[in-house]
């Protein structure tokens, strides 16, 4: 293991901005996609009784 302490880990050898910036944005975007997937399913279920997409009433 490369880390002597927890703060050593977070400092990331001086590259904290780059490493944690990468991981944080990736995690955030994946969380956002999961939320959007859940919302889309909820909307699709709500509208499932109505007419199909693209079919004009």
């Amino acid at each position: 293991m490369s880390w002597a302490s927890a703060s050593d880990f977070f400092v990331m050898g001086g590259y904290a901005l780059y490493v944690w910036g990468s991981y944080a944005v990736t995690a955030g975007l994946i969380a956002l996609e999961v939320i959007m997937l859940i919302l889309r399913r909820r909307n699709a279920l709500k509208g499932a009784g109505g007419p199909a997409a693209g079919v004009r009433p």
Partner: protein
Amino acid sequence: MSQPTLVIGNINWFRYASPQTFYPLAGAMIPWFAWAAAVLCVAGLYVGFFVAPTDQQQGEAYRIIFIHVPAAWMSMFIYVVMAFWAGVGLTFNTRLSHMMATALAPTGALFTFVALWTGALWGKPTWGTWWVWDARLTSELILLFLYFGFTALQAAIDEPRRADRAGAVLALVGVVNIPIIYYSVKWWNTLHQGASVSLTSAPTMAATMLAGMLLMALAAWMYSIAAALHRVRSIILERERGTDWVAQDLEVRP
């Protein structure tokens, strides 16, 4: 129109090309892929941060590799799969194939953006710049625009079958960009390093680094499958609403 058939081993595989058959099947598969993604991601991060050593040249900055490379692989691979389903949809006129292509695009765009973002954050400390207009970076940016273009084109056309076909043609034309991305580091002079992992030569990195990267790549695969299956189920509901089977399915599982 008569039902197409493709019988291999006593199973008519086109049966699964019907949204009605595929919908519950996809629903049953999602938890498995989602859990596999979570477990592989935790394992990959553990290996990446606590087992893999510090890089001699790049220090800790190299640890961006555990997302950058899997994301870049996924960005290209999802596009190829998307173009494959688009081609199948154009050839056999199967609705589900087009829906699958549509479902893959947002996840592909996500990984393309992640590859570009982490590349910029890796480039600054190692190359001294966030961005260069070289072949690898530019062709990956074009890939992002292809995903956006595919989604925007489909969204712009009201009639679903026409939107399917227009999107499919764009996806198939854009697939020419994939070998350009992959071979760009060989074909042109670039700041971007060549492939660290290839089928023809030994990997140029420590075994534990490679293990962390491959675990994260597998996690990205599992996540992408789960996300695409989840999205395609919503697309099926949106497009098939009003049909008897959707109404019945909602009565059983509201």
